[in-house]
């Protein structure tokens, strides 16, 4: 008699009568396989920093696969870095749940555009996205760039397109962003950090 693991579970779910059979030893070998093995034994470990508050807790990010060429890495678990001087391995409820941020069903995956008056998103390529955004920006900059003010002072500013920066982006992103923004003449520049 071959009983699959699933069938066995189903049988057990039938209730006390049938399940007592297990008590008498009528359990398939597979189901006896027992408790969980340690799930991170050979996962890849990467050091990271929590993206939430500014305690900036150290993280250990575990991903599936040993980084072999044919394995696509997938993050399977995140916990605190015990070496980190501030959090010493601890994480708050948000940090402890970071895996669910990484795998949120609301992660964006493709560039999209919503046309004027439209009710929906349309998927586009990066190439198209960059092209269309750059054209918008250039048209606005060329039309509204101010070289000198009323007093004839050189001001070289563009104040009809604004930029709001994240306070969760890296320093490198922040630096490159401010460099580009100022380079374009943007003055309507602010950050989440203010509020």
């Amino acid at each position, binding site marked *: 008699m071959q009983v699959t693991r699933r069938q066995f579970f189903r049988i057990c779910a039938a209730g006390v009568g049938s399940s007592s059979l297990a008590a008498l030893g009528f359990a398939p070998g597979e189901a006896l396989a027992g*408790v*969980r093995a340690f799930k991170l034994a050979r996962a890849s470990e990467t050091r990271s920093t929590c993206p939430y508050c500014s305690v900036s807790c150290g993280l250990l990010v575990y991903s599936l696969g040993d980084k072999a060429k044919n394995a696509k890495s997938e993050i399977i678990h*995140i916990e605190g870095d015990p070496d980190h001087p501030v959090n010493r391995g601890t994480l*708050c409820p948000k940090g402890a749940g970071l895996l669910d941020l990484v795998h949120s069903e609301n992660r964006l995956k493709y560039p999209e555009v919503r046309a004027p008056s439209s009710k929906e998103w349309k998927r586009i390529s990066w190439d198209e996205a960059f092209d269309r955004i750059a054209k918008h920006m250039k048209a606005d900059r060329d039309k509204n760039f101010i070289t000198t003010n009323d007093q004839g002072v050189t001001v070289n500013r563009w104040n009809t397109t604004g930029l709001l920066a994240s306070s969760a982006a890296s320093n490198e992103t922040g630096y490159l962003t401010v460099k580009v923004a100022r380079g374009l003449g943007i003055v309507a520049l602010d950050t989440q950090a203010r509020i």
Partner: protein
Amino acid sequence: MALQSLDIKARSATTTPTPQARGAIPVAKLIDISKCIGCKACQVACMQWNDLRDEVGDNVGVYDNPADLTAQSWTVMRFSEVEVEQGRLEWLIRKDGCMHCADPGCLKACPAPGAIVQYANGIVDFHEEHCIGCGYCVTGCPFDIPRISKKDSKAYKCTLCSDRVAVGLEPACVKTCPTGAIVFGSKEDMIHHAEGRIADLKERGYANAGLYDPAGVGGTHVMYVLQHADQPQLYADLPKDPHISPLVALWKGVTKPLMSLGIGVAVLAGFFHYVTAGPKEVEEENETD
């Protein structure tokens, strides 16, 4: 198999003697309620480590979410607003979950061989593969901890992260606890640590601070430091003097082997009929799982 490093000290519904030759250091988790901020990191770390996700519930006027322990929530925070001293509000927040009793009522009550085991270090673990879903562990537990899953009709509860402890790590909730309200180590060290905390609390005016390690269940491997150890019921009805129900003791002592055998004989015929005549039906159900 995976837990070879942990010898089994007791096994449900089993008469075969367990190995005794090797020693083990009893472990304990100590929850210091005076340091707990109720952040629920332990709840999240538990669901992350154990691959559990409960339903997204609702707010019913309290901070307790999920509202109760479930087969997907093995630990929950219970919030109580109390005024022990008139005019001085205290927000007592207790992490609820399995106490890992030295004398576990669940294991005593369990009729399924090997569904509940107690390791030599004191951890009481459920092996769901052997669980028959009878719910006797629920009746047997003086703390109302085990929950039967709606998905597979099996009983679930905190394992004290036996799979982590077996390889030398602390449980997930202990590791994550931001304020160090949860600590883990040998039971001896934890009692010592608690003594220091209790002395500190007494200095800060909590005259009745004390350790919760109830003797009625032989002591526990999850203990609390309470600011008001004389009134554990303040902490969302933590039982003052927990005991295993006398009915369970009776069931375990005499009746269980007989009862178990009786039930088995009575349903054997039905079982063979179900397994041999009903595979098609079972497969259909499988597809919709």
